[in-house]
């Protein structure tokens, strides 16, 4: 078995299993914790609408905070959109998904994906430098923050190297890229990458709680 066979076979299966099982375990684990019913008289009915509003509202900062946070939000959006486009709109990735789901969708030109990847890596580097140099972020950061950065950045770097065919041996390079993605998937349920789910849960929870009261969150 070559390294590529390993990456495409057991490594992939193991990574996807941990990814799916881990996410379900962590989400259900929190959901199963004690729920307390709020017995206060709601100011208005249909708190769920506030939950939906909260999901959208916190996607962009309120006006008084925009000056201070605009750079961080822009960097955040570049990273997230970069991930989205590169994962789902690069031709070889679409072929990979097509194998699994049985259908595909239009791809972006390779040159565009390369440019997006480079920009995303740039944004990730800026985010890391800010984390290391901003006293607030440096204080509140832990291993998870740095390791998450590492496992997110690595597939971009290995992917660019594979697409640019700069490895000494293409197939080994491709295998390394795949393994770097599996590392991301395996780590996903254990660290803050889970914010891909928590952002919705948390925003909805606060939005609906405050819709009962009025006020703002």
């Amino acid at each position, binding site marked *: 078995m070559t390294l590529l066979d390993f990456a495409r076979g057991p490594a992939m299966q193991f990574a996807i299993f941990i990814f799916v099982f881990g996410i379900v375990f962590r989400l259900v684990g929190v959901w199963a914790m004690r729920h307390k019913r709020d017995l206060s008289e709601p100011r208005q009915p249909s708190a769920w609408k506030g939950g939906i509003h909260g999901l959208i509202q916190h996607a962009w900062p309120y006006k008084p905070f925009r000056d201070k946070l605009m750079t961080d939000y822009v960097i955040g959006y570049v990273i997230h959109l970069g991930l989205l486009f590169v994962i789902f709109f690069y031709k070889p990735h679409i072929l990979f998904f097509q194998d699994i789901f049985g259908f595909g969708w239009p791809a972006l030109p390779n040159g565009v994906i390369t440019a997006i990847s480079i920009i995303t890596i740039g944004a990730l580097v800026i985010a890391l430098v800010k984390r290391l140099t901003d006293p607030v972020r440096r204080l509140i950061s832990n291993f998870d923050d740095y390791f998450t950065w590492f496992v997110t950045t690595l597939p971009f770097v290995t992917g660019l190297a594979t697409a640019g065919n700069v490895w000494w041996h293409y197939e080994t390079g491709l295998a390394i890229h795949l393994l770097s993605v599996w590392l991301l998937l395996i780590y996903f349920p254990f660290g803050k990458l889970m914010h891909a789910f928590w952002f919705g849960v948390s925003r909805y929870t606060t939005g609906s709680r405050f819709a009962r009261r009025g006020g*703002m969150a």
Partner: protein
Amino acid sequence: MSDATTTDIPVDLESKRLTVTRPDIRFDKQGELGDDERVQKAMQHFAKDFGYIAANYMEACVHCGACAQACPFYEANPDPKLTPIWKLEPFKQAYKREAGPLSFFYKTLNLKSKVTIEQLEEWQELLYDTCTMCGRCTLVCPMSIDIATLVGMARHGMFHAGLVPHELYTVTEKAEREGSPLGATPKVFADRVEWMEDEHEVDMPLDADKADVLVLMSSIEIQKYPESMAATGKILNQMGKSWTFHTEGYEATNFGMLSGNTQWQKDMTMKIISTAEKIGAELVILPECGHAYQALRWQGANMLGRPLPFKVQHISEFLAEAVESGAIRVNKVDKSVAFHDPCQVSRRGGATPAPRKILEALGVELREPESTGNLNFCCGGGGGVITIHRADSLRYKIMGNKLEQLDATGAEMMVTSCSNCRQNFDDSGEKLHWDKQMNSLLELVAENLVEDTKS
């Protein structure tokens, strides 16, 4: 230090702010517990709060640090330690190690270390002195984490570990024992009602057997702003309401909630609920007090374990309805006004429109400060902070920022609807040589009430 020592410290009735007379002698550890027992107690009570809501908030943090940018304490002193989410570090650490879905890994592999007594002692200042639970951090959090609620929960563990700043502990213990954090015992309350009745020639029913409306006061008002009682009485009499004050349930402040003792919080809330039920009240009116609104309007039913059998309104909500319905009429006030929103009534309470309706009826020219309404900048005195002398320098800096915002409006008159905010403005205003005064919205309405001779 022993409980006995802390309760012996008298409260300071002379100063403009609610506190104790000897802040220089500190008893920031209560009880005779050993260090291990303190940690154990904190963990037990942290665990009680690890439900679904707290858990998903603690899972959601991505350590972006944005919360610092909204915190009045961080703005006054940009020390990274004052970052709101950092104030919860031991609480988060305990959750991840002891309760979260991955706690098995965290504990077995020691990925999260045990919370230590040194940590808890260090965090006393962060959880009590430097957070008013104003909730501004939630506005700015991309995950919308309700940090203020979590700080309130973390205080439960701190209280039971005997790690409450001594001024806050003292006034809380006094409130539990005497019924008031400021010595406004039932007898003192009755005396002051009588005094205000004479002084203002307003009838104020006390201990009526039956009444539709039970009116509460805060000890701050009873002791420092007693005109509030007369103002409330004057308005309710004008409306022809069947109402009463009651010596069995008159005190709206809830220092059990602020300091972190849930049982005491319940005791304080139950006095009000039992009294309201006893007299058959349909409505309980809360005074100009922010956290009292939280304690009864939003947490009261949860303390009782069933929905409240009466309606609860902050006095500003009651007055807004009264002016809107025409139940009272007010004279026009030819002045420009800036309004300071109490965080617990506005942003975290939902009664933000009420004072604006009243001010509109009063015909004032409302000049909103830069960050207002639900986005209001906290005065820095809530959550028990005003009692703590260690917090004074930071509180005055926050107030400096607040006064700048208010002064920038150029308004002639400053108004609020929280007596705790008001005492902070009085105390800090004097310290900062502010040339204005914070006024009560309730008193402004009473002063300008059109008195109908029919009643």
